[in-house]
Structures are given as C-alpha cells and as structure tokens.
C-alpha cells in the first residue's frame, strides 16, 4: 500500500506543479530595495500570485500564478512601468525558475 502511494507521489507533485504558471521578469532600473518595494506591492496584486522573489543585483523578479489566471505579458509590463521600472523581458514557464540568490530569505 505504502509502495503504491510512494509511486503515485511524483505524479501528484507534477500535477500540482502543472497547475501553476511561473513568471520571470528581467527588470531594468532596479538598484535599491526601498524603490523596489513599489514593484513588490503591485505584483502582489496579481490574482493568486505566490513565491514572489526579487533579486536586485541580478535585476530579476520571479513569481508563480495559477495557470488559468496567467496575466498577459503586456499586463506585467504595465505593472512594472507603473512601479517606475522597465520590464526588459517577461518569460513564462511550466517549471520554477532558479533563484541565483537562494540564501537571501
């Protein structure tokens, strides 16, 4: 019974992962934490967002959202612009993006 459950776990995890859409934003103009707070505040208004992570030195922001509520690239670009920055790239993925500063928080 336990063996059957164990065999089933990876499939379930994959299913849970597949329900999320992962977003990576390459942001120009990020240079100080105080300024970046406005970006965090605005991105946190995206419905169902989780795991928002800002890497200042790398100029990267990652988050994930429910796959069926994935915002359009233009929506994300406008959010970043309203916060005072420029979204140079917006990438979507079915799997999480790696953080380059994993020990940051």
């Amino acid at each position, binding site marked *: 019974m336990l063996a059957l459950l164990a065999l089933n776990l990876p499939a379930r995890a994959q299913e849970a992962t597949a329900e999320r859409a992962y977003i990576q934003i390459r942001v*120009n*103009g*990020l*240079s*100080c*934490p*105080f*300024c*970046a*707070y*406005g*970006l965090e*505040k*605005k991105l946190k208004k995206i419905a169902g967002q989780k795991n928002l992570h*800002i*890497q*200042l*030195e790398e*100029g990267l922001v990652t988050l994930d959202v429910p796959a069926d509520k994935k915002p359009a690239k233009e929506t994300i670009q406008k959010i970043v*612009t*309203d*916060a*005072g*920055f*420029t979204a*140079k790239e917006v990438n979507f993925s079915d799997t999480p993006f790696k953080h380059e*500063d994993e020990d*940051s*928080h």
Partner: protein
Amino acid sequence: MLTFYSPGANAHEPLYGFGPHVLFKGGWAPHITTNFSGKLVESEYALGYGITPAWTGIAEVGFSDASGPYQASFYRLKSKYRFYINNQPGYSHQVALISQLTLPAQNGEPGAFDMAFTGGREGLKFYWFASAGYGLRFADNPVKPGNRVIYNFTLGYRPFRVNYYKPDIVFFVETTGFTFQRSKNNGEPVAESGGSVFAVAPTFFFTYRNLAVRGGVQFGVWEDGFVNKPDTNFKLTVEVHL
C-alpha cells in the same frame, strides 16, 4: 530657513537638496523630518502620493519654534514630474521638474514659489544628483525679500552588496548653495541685503523594505554678502512607503 527643499516621497535622494525620483503610481509616502540647529527645532510633516508613474504630489506642514512657541510655520504643496527616465540593468538615469508653493503660517513671514530641474543616477553602487532652481519670494509687506537661486550636487556610495530582503545603507556627501538677490523696499533695492552661502553635509540613507531613515549633519562653509551661512545643524527623516 535654508532647507527650502525638503526630501521625502523619494528614494536615495539628498537630505538637504532634492532629486528626480518619484513615487510608484498609487503609492503613499508619509514622512516626518526634523532639523536641529542650536536651540532651534524645525519639523515637517508630509504626505506624498504617486499620481502617475511619473508624477508625485506632496503636501507638507512645517512647524518651528523660531518665533517663540513651537507652532505651524508654513504650508507647502509640491509637485515633482519626472520627464526623462532611462532604466538600465542595475541603474537608472532620471530628470525631473520640481515646483512648489510655500505659504507662511504666520503673518509677516515670506512665502515662495520655487521651480527646479533635478537629475541624477541611482545605481547598485554609486549615486549622483545635480540640481538647480530659482525661487520667487513674496511677502505681505512693503519690503519684498529677494528671490533666490539654489544649486546642489550630491555623490553617494553603497559600501555593501544590496539584497532586497536585507537592510541597506548608502552614504552621501551633499553640497548645497544659495544665492539671494537683494530685497526691495517699495521697489528700491535694500543696500544691506542679498548674498550667497554654501554648505556641505555628510548624510546616510538606511532602508529596510518600505521603511527609510535618513540623517546627516550640515556645515556652513562659506558666505558672502549679507546672508549668514547656516549654523551646523542635524537633520533626520523617517519615511514609509505604502
């Protein structure tokens, strides 16, 4: 009062001067600034709001004990419009136009309307700001105070690596100069009026997430004409972005 341009609703900007940064759209920035100069205490209570991504409005009330009891000394409305921005990886160049109307809270005190251009760079390691402005001064009095020119230049350095989730500090050296034109009495220049001053101030800017504390000490280093250089004074600002 030589600190005509209070900071606030900004980012890593000069404590004694000004800079081009504006609030994010829809953002609120309450902040309190207190200046100690000898026995004189001046405070400003201000609230900034990000009207658009490029335009911030700020309302301020100043308090002072300069004329006896600690009481309201001025009301101020300030607009900052950033008309140029160049965001690049790890830094940003910006230029803004600041305009502000200052009305005295007490009879006999002068009011002012100031406009200034300010620009600079904010980076992961280095900062600089340069600004220049002109202020019209007026008073309900036969003696009209002279208009003024302000200019400042600031350099900043962040000694540690920056991380969004950790406290951050940047150190600055600020220079500020003022030139006052001669006052006029019924249209005639007042002989012993007008002049220039110059001051230097080491300052710091400490932040943790949406809380900022900045402080510093200003030294008057030069004076000319009939204006006294500022006494050594200490300034502290606490600001929150909401």
